[in-house]
């Protein structure tokens, strides 16, 4: 009972935020229906969200075959298997970028550099994978994945070291590093690592380093790597002394120093770890069965989505896993929605942005709906934004 109340207090604001975002998304779909359907269609959101749900889970609750809407609950097992597989595949990287932000919050750090760390992790994995393409699968995969983690960690180390030793605020530094990574990697892939053959610039195939498919069309090892990080992160943050140090420095850097901890070391360590998570995300995307190489033109929004995932999951590893499944499901269902309801898939980005908006507005939601709930923003976030105007942390 006590646990149930606690889960309610923790999850009510995220749930309301998602519902409100879907509601606003529905209004947007209705308003734009004259452009997308040629006429104003008040029922379009239902069709769209049904297609989205079916694309993500295989569950259908509408029968639209004869044009009219009729409620008809059905699950096609094959469709469900395919849909859930693609949801898991989409959720994997989001778990990791969510952790890349959420673990940072625990140390009072706002890692906006997920995007850059994903790219660097991706290119490291692609190059390492190409180098070990001929090795046995377990060896090749392990090396390529670890290379991705290392690349991301290195790219997280930079803002960490800059913050620890010069006081440069990690938010601005990581924003700059995001753009920098994109430019540098495009240049390198186009001019140095490009292989001849394909019609577009890309790195060599990773061969045996491609993540083995274990189930369905593309249900690959990457999913397990990603979700394995959830208990690992939980254990690290809440069960180890290092985790206690990280949480202490996030809550009160002065007290951490008094208690004999080294805020510098913890800042560098935590941001490197955040980078490692994001780098792993890049690795499992690049090494995934649908790619297996690094294309010069590679854009991704999973870095920024990590912020939404982390806040939606209340910076708790378990919450982050659920949030990633939700957002992953949306991403996986979006193509079905585009095909079946003729709604452009970018609506998903809008809805995910709206979720973040409503989460940020939690104070208002709580006041309006009179819900008793715990605050969503991690305490440590105050350390983050308040330090923006100050030179140094320690």
């Amino acid at each position, binding site marked *: 009972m006590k646990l149930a109340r606690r889960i309610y207090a923790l999850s009510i604001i995220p749930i309301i935020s998602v519902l409100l975002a879907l509601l606003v998304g529905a209004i947007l779909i209705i308003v734009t229906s004259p452009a997308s359907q040629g006429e104003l269609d008040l029922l379009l959101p239902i069709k769209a969200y049904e297609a989205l749900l079916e694309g993500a889970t295989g569950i259908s609750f509408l029968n639209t075959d004869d044009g009219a809407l009729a409620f008809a609950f059905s699950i096609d097992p094959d469709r469900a298997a395919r849909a859930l597989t693609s949801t898991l595949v989409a959720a994997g990287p989001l778990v990791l970028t969510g952790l890349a932000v959420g673990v940072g919050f625990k140390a009072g750090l706002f890692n906006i550099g997920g995007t850059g760390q994903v790219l660097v992790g991706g290119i490291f994995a692609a190059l390492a994978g190409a180098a070990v393409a001929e090795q046995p699968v377990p060896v090749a995969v392990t090396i390529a994945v670890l290379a991705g983690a290392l690349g991301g960690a290195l790219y997280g180390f930079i803002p960490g070291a800059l913050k620890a030793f010069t006081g*440069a605020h990690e938010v601005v530094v990581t924003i700059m590093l995001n753009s920098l990574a994109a*430019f540098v990697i495009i240049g390198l*892939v186009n*001019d140095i690592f490009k292989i001849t053959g394909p019609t577009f610039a890309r790195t060599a195939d990773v061969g045996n380093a491609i993540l083995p498919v274990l189930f369905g069309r593309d249900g690959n090892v990457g999913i397990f790597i990603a979700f394995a990080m959830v208990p690992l992160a939980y254990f690290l943050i809440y069960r180890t002394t290092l985790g206690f140090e990280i949480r202490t420095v996030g809550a009160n850097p002065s007290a951490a120093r008094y208690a004999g901890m080294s805020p510098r070391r913890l800042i560098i360590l935590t941001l490197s770890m955040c980078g490692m998570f994001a780098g792993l995300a890049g690795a499992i995307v690049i090494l995934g069965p649908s790619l297996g190489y690094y294309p010069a033109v590679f854009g991704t929004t999973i870095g920024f989505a990590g912020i939404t995932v982390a806040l939606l999951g209340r910076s708790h590893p378990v919450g982050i896993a659920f949030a990633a499944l939700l957002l992953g499901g949306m991403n996986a269902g979006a193509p079905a929605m585009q095909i079946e309801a003729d709604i*452009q898939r*970018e609506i998903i980005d809008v809805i995910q942005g709206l979720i973040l908006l409503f989460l940020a507005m939690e104070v208002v939601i709580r006041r309006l709906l009179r819900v008793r709930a715990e605050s969503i923003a991690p305490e440590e976030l105050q350390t983050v934004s308040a330090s*923006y105007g100050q030179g140094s942390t320690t």
Partner: protein
Amino acid sequence: MDFLYQIPVLGFVFQIVGYLIDAVVNTNLAPQTLALATPIALGAMCGVMNERSGVVNIGIEGMMLTAAFVGFMAAVIVDDAMPDAQPSAFFGFTPALLVGVLAAIGAGMLVSALHAWMSISVRADQIISGTVINIIALGLTSYLNRTIQPSGSAGTFDSFHPPEALVDLPIVGWIFNMFLSQGPITMSVIVIVIILQVLLFRSRWGLRTRAVGEHPRAADTVGVNVFALRYRNVILGGIFAGLAGAWLTLEFNASFQNGMTANRGFIALAAVIFGRWTPIGAFGGALLFMFSEALGVAIRSNPPPGDLGVWLSGIQASYPSIYNNSFSALPYILTIIVLAGVVGRSIAPAAVGQPYVKEGAH
């Protein structure tokens, strides 16, 4: 002159300086730089307005993108409604373009108002508020652009053509060329920057703005309304982000593409930091950043003479992509260097990022 280039090391410097002077004075490098710097500088003015009053704004990118889309759509709609309107001789003004600019400004202010409300009243985390704006702006404009698929275009503003005699003046002609051979939004930048600089440091509004950004409680105790001033400044800052968006779709391009701001909002943020939160400094940062970009293009078509040219042409021939992207990456590297205090530290207004809570209002 050639003998100067023969001196070891120093000759290399002479070559670079000589080439730069030649490029600035005799080519279109200067006006191109100013034009490219326009959205950066305008975005940076939005940033200065926000951060000087104590509100972090990393949502400039999203504000610009929204304004670019709204301005473009408004112009197209008016253009469709009034197909017979003829461009005026003055910058090629048409009713459509004028409405487009006003709509872009309105959009910029509206998004800024959201940011102001989130940051000041809701007291949400300001970095998250900016992120929300970036994510929603990119998603929403892309969604609407694909759904509506606007056809046609309202064209662009014309550049002003200063008298040939002025441009051809020796030594100073390029300056006239730089500031006068421009469209209306680009020309307005220099005026906006100077006005903001003077107001920020000489007016009552400026004093109060700086006070509110540094120590809002101190300002409050002498009767300055912190909330009202922050609201006003953040919303007015939206005008500049709006103009930057208008420049993208109504002056520089005649169309809208998804994500067309292409990180300009983030370079604007960099310019704010680079310019130490002053309008003139941020403008200088924008010019410097875009000069490197424009120079990269200029060198490609017109390589410098001597060893330098051979060297650069060599790099460019072997590594064209690295060559091009290096110039684009430069602003970010420079900003990180400045942030790290390698060449003099840039320190933000002290209260930036902290929502103000009145005393006793627990």
